[in-house]
């Protein structure tokens, strides 16, 4: 049992979750853009692919910036004191 806790403590779960989310996001974004460009008929699907690419890039950058501005030490100290109560 102790070894399981040691194993989970040794991996950075938030980093793994971020990488997993990044992987899923890249796959979905690629598949949507690929379908628009490869199988779309006419100009409109290609323009939609361009709109989606630029907008998702902006949203992803914005989410990354928001992540960097989270005050983790404050949150953890609050959670620590909160859990101590119970």
């Amino acid at each position, binding site marked *: 049992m102790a070894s399981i806790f040691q194993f989970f403590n040794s991996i950075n779960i938030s980093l793994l979750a971020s990488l997993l989310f990044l992987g899923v996001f890249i796959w979905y974004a690629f598949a*949507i853009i690929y379908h*628009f460009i490869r199988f779309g*008929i006419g100009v409109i*699907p290609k323009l939609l692919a361009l709109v989606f690419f630029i907008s*998702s890039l902006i949203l992803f950058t914005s*989410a990354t910036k928001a992540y960097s501005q989270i005050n983790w030490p404050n949150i953890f100290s609050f959670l620590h004191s909160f859990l101590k109560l119970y």
Partner: protein
Amino acid sequence: MAIFKSSNSFRNQQPGETTVFVSRRHWIVLLGPVVFFILLMALPSVVNHFISSQSWYSLFSGLFEFLTRVYFLILWILLFYNIMLFSLNTVVVTNKRVIENQQKGFFKYTLNEVYLDKIQDISVNISGVFSTLLSYGDIEIQSAGTQNKFYFRTLPHPQKIKKIITG
């Protein structure tokens, strides 16, 4: 730019086949998902309204901001997934045949086709107030081929499409 000059070529196009007309389903099909996504976009504001008065909110505001942006990113992807399906579900009339592309997901589609010389009868079905006002309906093509009937549903201006098919 080449992107603004894209031709109406399509997958499984035969040699010498030219596109006469391309139609997607009526925009009313997309209205439901778009309204649903707009409502979902308001959800973080509603949650923020209830939790912003809490004493602990200032500690978690950064985290909340991050989760909101990730939520918007997921919604954006799902919205464009629906737009992609709408955009790739097409009816193509060429000089040889009528083709219906049904995109059902990523890398999953069906293609129905009927050759113009096999068409025996085309009927248009417009029923209801909305479909009459917004001019959309179904087209049924009777064919002499192995598959007798073809249904193309919720197409804009079905009478016009019928005229194009019959020449």
